[in-house]
């Protein structure tokens, strides 16, 4: 079975935004090992696209959390605390990362200086 077909099956495995376990079990019983690997990869990609990770250096208040969830309506927002960020936050939306924190600024500064002095 081609990858495109498996991607369509993966998309069809969702019911109201959640994975349909019985559908998944039914599908996997008909797949070869390689097809199963591609199917799992497609499901993981869809899960990644559904979810947004917001890493903060501090514990956000309920109001702040609500504000951020409104920005990403329709997606599953997961909050994580990462003290390494020093200040600010990092939003990871699948393969796009919005780095709005002090650590990123300092890292960018370091990279810039290294390029200048290299």
């Amino acid at each position, binding site marked *: 079975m081609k990858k495109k077909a498996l991607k369509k099956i993966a998309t069809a495995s969702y019911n109201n935004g959640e994975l349909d376990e019985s559908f998944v079990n039914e599908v996997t019983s008909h797949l070869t090992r390689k097809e199963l690997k591609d199917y799992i*990869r497609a499901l993981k*990609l869809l899960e990644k696209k559904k979810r947004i990770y917001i890493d903060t250096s501090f514990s956000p208040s309920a109001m702040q959390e609500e504000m951020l969830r409104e920005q990403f309506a329709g997606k599953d927002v997961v909050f994580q605390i990462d003290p390494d960020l020093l200040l600010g936050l990092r939003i*990871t939306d*699948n*393969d*796009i*990362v*919005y*780095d*709005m924190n002090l650590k*990123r*600024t300092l890292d*960018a*500064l370091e*990279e*810039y*200086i290294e390029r*200048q*002095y*290299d």
Partner: protein
Amino acid sequence: MIKSEEIIKNLEKRLHTFSADPKTQNVGTVETNNDGVLRVSGLSQAMMGEMVQLAGGGADGVVLNLAEDTVSVILLDPGTEIREGDGVKTTGRLLSINASDQLLGRIINPLGKPLDGKTKAKQGKDMPLERIAAGVVEREPVNTPLKTGIKAIDAMIPIGRGQRELIIGDRGLGKTAVAVDAIINQKHVQKVEKRVVCVYVAIGQKQSTVAQIIGKLEEENAMDYTIVVAANASDPASLQYLAPYAGVAIAEYFLEKGEDVLIVYDDLTKHAWAYRQLSLVLGRPAGREAYPGDIFYLHSRLLERAVKLNEKNGGGSITALPIIETQANDISAYIPTNVISITDGQIFLESDLFNAGIRPAINVGISVSRVGTAAQTGTMKSVAGKMKLELAQFRELAAFAQFGSELDPETQRQLERGRRITEIFKQPQYKPMTEPDEVIDILAVTSGFADDIPVENIQQFIAELRDHVHRKDKKFTDKLSSNEKVNDEVRREFEKIVTAFKRGFKI
């Protein structure tokens, strides 16, 4: 001793362009690594040809394939440990090389990293490796000679600044030697004319060979105006693929300043092999001889960047000398025919001539320069024209010489003249000649002054004649440097000089 204030001031100056704006990064994950080509999931915003970096400040790579869910990245640094699941991020930059005047005399790799053990050249201008060539309106016809110092080329197959002239032949016939002589000759040229910056691009060669070439250039003081870009045989195919583009990007830095540049690509056959290797690993469809479908475009877009700009755009030029290695003199193979159709002429080196002792082994009969006499000075044009005709007549009659039958005096004369012209085209390696010296040699033979000298003594004759002219009559040499046509008065003067010389000449 640098004061603290100076350090801080320096830092502030360097940081004034730093942007602290929040950065949007596009990231991905390594899925597979096949022979230096990574398949990366994510990177949905990556551009074709964009540089990417492995997470943790690791190796750099370039995006070369864009698929629906993945991108293929070629690694530029082979020595990095890469595992499945490693992060990759885009940099927002296309592949570029930092070029400055400080690169003169340096040996670097296609990424700008020094290979000569010295520190990296200070920040200059970032020149993109891929760039659209100058348009028709910005160019002007080639009208200035690029003197190689090789008699056969300067007289019969003249190259102009801004031309692309292919050097083609089997292995070991002296293709690199011709290019290196052209570079060394610029040392003489810059004393009397606008200097020519030289860029030598070594693609897929043995490091020992490259070291030998660099050693010779240093010995001849040619490294002062030369930059060597090397991607050796042990370097990844990605670096060998990028090397010529890095070379021409550096050449364009000098071009933009209005300078003339000579760039040698040694050799494009290995460049094609490296690109074939990359394309096959990237999964691109294989065409003729397993080369990818865009193999022609690989070289055409490279060679189109050789240009002669008009005065309005700076008046600079890039002259390209691509080298192609053939197998068994087969110039009808795929890559040779591709590059022949792109360039403005070709210099054929033949093994038969090489084995017969004619070195450089240039077959002037089938070698061509499509720019022609527009790339010759008035002096050379006035002496070379007659010689071309005599050589053509000699080639036609050469077959008869084998029969040993009695030939009429005129035929005999033409054969003898042709033999002497062939003899003066022989030239030692690494000994390029100035134009006055070349003209002296050609005039001596085409005016008939060498007709009574045995062929095997011609080299001695012309060497001593040149020496005599330099010692006894420097004004005559200056006349030959004036770019003026050799008129009857100059010929009469030359006759007097040769007559006086021949009185004392002993074989």
